[in-house]
């Protein structure tokens, strides 16, 4: 059955950042230079071709964009300046929008204004709500304890509600990804037990991002800087998320510093601040090819995270130095950025935290299934029609 070409698709991908893909003439240099492409996953060449032809049904079931960590070697190599690296990035954005059943992600990626206005509205609503709550129950002069402006048990419940909402969206979207990739996109039979034997891939890739480290073979440092910084940022982020979701009451209590909790908070902060500063600086300086083109959503991501880290730190310092009013005001600002940030998570670049390890997991299962099928096939005599 012939697949219908959609010549208009390439225009749609413009707003996701794939501005130069039409220049590609399929020489395949990108796939040759890519340290991750192999005979099973032939990106970026194949993905670029599918994009040019607008074969959406093939693209939405592909894992290939997730297997790319954007080291930019392909874009440096490209003889036509078709920017394969940025195309893969754009496809990841498009896939995030595709997995998202609400359609919100697509709106955010397509329109900067929609995203920024939504963030501002949610931030203002949060601010008003928090101020109302604070003034009706407590005092702006008190930071912790019973009559605190924003008591920690309340914040804990608030966080858990947000977290549940977030998890709900993510589970739905991840299930959609699984359906597209493993059911619609896989013609071969995948034995169920591969899901169990390959399960280790999920935590392995989540916590090490091993493949990111393998990017860019010719690099100037012994360790690939973007990888280590990104790893620090991600581990800091996850640690902080756990602290906030589970240990907020210990974290917020004062004036003594509970080192068994706080040491994690400080380490996480180092990871977060280093990461955000590094990435903001890189996007300004554009010294690596992967930071040359920044999509609007990339800026929202790093800047919002930077504000969250900064206000979080400030709040902590004000609290411990006894400036309770300042601490409470910064806390409100902190929450005003945290709430839109968390609510935006499933619809934004952030979601790659979940999709990428999932993709590695699915890719490993698929690869195993392919090899097994080949082994079965090769044990039979080949019939040539």
């Amino acid at each position: 059955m012939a697949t219908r070409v959609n010549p208009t698709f390439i225009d749609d991908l413009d707003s996701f950042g794939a501005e130069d893909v039409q220049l590609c003439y399929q020489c395949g240099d990108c796939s040759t230079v890519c340290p991750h492409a192999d005979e099973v996953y032939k990106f970026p060449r194949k993905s670029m071709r599918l994009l040019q032809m607008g074969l959406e049904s093939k693209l939405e079931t592909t894992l290939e964009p997730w297997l790319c960590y954007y080291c930019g070697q392909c874009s440096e190599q490209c003889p036509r300046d078709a920017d394969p690296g940025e195309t893969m990035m754009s496809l990841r954005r498009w896939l995030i929008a595709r997995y998202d059943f609400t359609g919100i992600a697509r709106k955010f990626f397509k329109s900067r204004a929609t995203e920024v206005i939504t963030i501002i509205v949610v931030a203002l609503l949060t601010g008003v709500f928090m101020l109302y709550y604070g003034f009706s129950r407590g005092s702006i002069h008190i930071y912790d304890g019973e009559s605190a402006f924003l008591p920690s048990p309340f914040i804990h419940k608030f966080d858990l509600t947000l977290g549940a909402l977030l998890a709900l969206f993510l589970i739905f979207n991840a299930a959609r990804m699984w359906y597209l990739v493993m059911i619609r996109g896989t013609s071969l039979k995948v034995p169920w037990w591969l899901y169990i034997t390959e399960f280790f891939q999920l935590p392995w890739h989540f916590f090490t991002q091993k493949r990111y480290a393998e990017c860019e073979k010719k690099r100037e440092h012994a360790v690939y800087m973007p990888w280590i910084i990104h790893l620090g940022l991600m581990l800091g982020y996850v640690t902080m998320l756990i602290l906030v979701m589970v240990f907020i009451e210990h974290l917020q209590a004062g004036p003594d510093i509970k080192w068994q909790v706080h040491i994690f908070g400080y380490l996480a902060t180092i990871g977060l601040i280093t990461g955000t500063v590094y990435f903001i600086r890189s996007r300004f300086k554009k010294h690596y090819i992967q930071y040359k083109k920044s999509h609007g959503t990339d800026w929202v991501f790093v800047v919002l995270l930077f504000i969250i880290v900064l206000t979080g730190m400030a709040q902590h310092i004000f609290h411990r130095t006894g400036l309770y009013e300042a601490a409470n005001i910064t806390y409100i600002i902190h929450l005003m950025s945290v709430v839109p940030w968390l609510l935006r998570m499933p619809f934004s670049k952030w979601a790659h935290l979940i999709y990428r390890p999932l993709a590695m997991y699915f890719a490993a299962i698929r690869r195993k299934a392919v090899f097994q099928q080949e082994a079965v096939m090769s044990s039979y005599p080949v019939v040539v029609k």
Partner: protein
Amino acid sequence: MKNCRIGVYICMCGTNIAKMVDVEAVSKFASELPNVALSRTYKYMCSNPGQEMISQDIREHQLNRIVVAACSPNMHERTFRAALRSAGLNQYLFEMANIREQCSWVHTDANEATEKAKALVYAAICRVELHEELESVSVNMCPNVLVIGGGIAGMTTALELADAGNNVYLVEKNDHLGGNLARVDLTAPYLYSARDLITERITRTFSHRKIEVYLQSRLTQLTGFIGNFKATISSINGKSTDNSGKTEVEIGNVVVCTGYKEFDASRIVHYGYGKLPNVITSFELEKMIRSGRIETKEGNIPRYVAIIHCVGSRSQEFHPYCSRVCCMTALKYAHEIKSANPGCYISDIYIDMHAFGKGHEDFYRRSSEAKTLFLMYEKGDRPVIHKAGPKDNCEMLIEVNEKLSGEVIEIPADLVVLMVGMEAREDSHEIARLVNISQDKEGWFIESHPKLEPVATTTDGIFIAGTCVAPKDIPDTVAQARAAAARILARIAKEKIEVDALYSEVNENLCSGCRLCNQLCPYSAIEFLEDKKVSHIISALCKGCGVCVAACPSSAIKGRHFTDQQVLAQVDGLFGID
């Protein structure tokens, strides 16, 4: 033969000959033959010292016949003839034995090769003994020129020749000048207007006082030979010296610029041309572009346009060659359609993108930038066009096995443009017969040498230029037209032309007037003298091929430099040694 002093020269050609043929043995063998005054070997006989050696020997040793055993005479016969001339010896007292292409290169046994070389040298010696002194003839060169075809090639040649002060008769079949180029809107890759290119040429051609334009006319007869042709032009518009519609002109040279015709797209059934209303040819699109509106038969602006390359070209069933201009023309259409309807999506379905010329690669890139979707199909695995269903939101669907992705795809299209290739005109064989030139199996006129003589033909005085030779683009066509003009101007400047002495002669006393040779001559060089009732060979036209010599039942024809005695002596020589 008495007083015959032959010099024999065996060339080693570096190691080309020497590694397989024992040249010293051949030289020794030759030196012992009767009439051989001296025999030498040398590393490169064609080099300046080699030629100098021959000239010097002729003077010092009073040699009067020379044999060089070396490469093919095609390669260096002219070189050695010049050496003879420089020593004051008639250049025809020379024979070449080919011991490279016909001996050392094709054999693996050195002994046998050496024996064969000896036989070839012996044959040449036997022949050269009978060689006669011959003189080239020279004929007058009429400065008038006939140009057949009024396209860009014909007009360019005509103007070039006329600007140099010569009378030009330009014969055009149609009622207007301009040819195929007049059917085109813009040209690739710089998007110059074709109309601008040709209107200036047309106006100048018509107004040039040295150019006589015959519209709606054909060449119906051409007699004579280089420098002295007589052409009959038949016109249907009554432009002639009398009322018969026929004009006779005297000319010295002819340039054939009859151009091409486009491939008939209905021959490819897959494409449904003629059945599906919105499948059109490139020339039909040109017409739309020139009228200022690109639309479907229903009058709608097409949203999806597909362009299919190589229609009739590069296929075993139709024409195996590439038509050269269609790739860039297709990109030009992509540009023109997109400029006219910016909301339009263009799919360009090709086999290979041939962007070989100046500015072409850039043009290809710009086309990519404008988001033309390039889709590649395998040679021999043609796209198939279907009518689309009511839900498809387009007129047609083109099914292609897309080579770069490996996917079987269908492309939506409201308008399909077929890039029809070039083919030789159906009446080109008539022209070929009239002016006595050859055609290849595709019908294109054949050059006398594909690389070194691209505009000359095997008939002296007949030149070919433009797309009647092979598909080519405008710059190449113009270059050929000017090249043909330059060749002719050089001859006109010399006023006389030397004709090779290798022609045949009829002994009128022996000729019975059977006229057998008249029909056999491939160069139309034999005329029948009605008054004497004998055949006569026009030496300027004769190439000395020998067909008439072999055919003549009365043995009345002698091929100069290829007399029966000379050829038989050569054969005897070949078999004369054990």
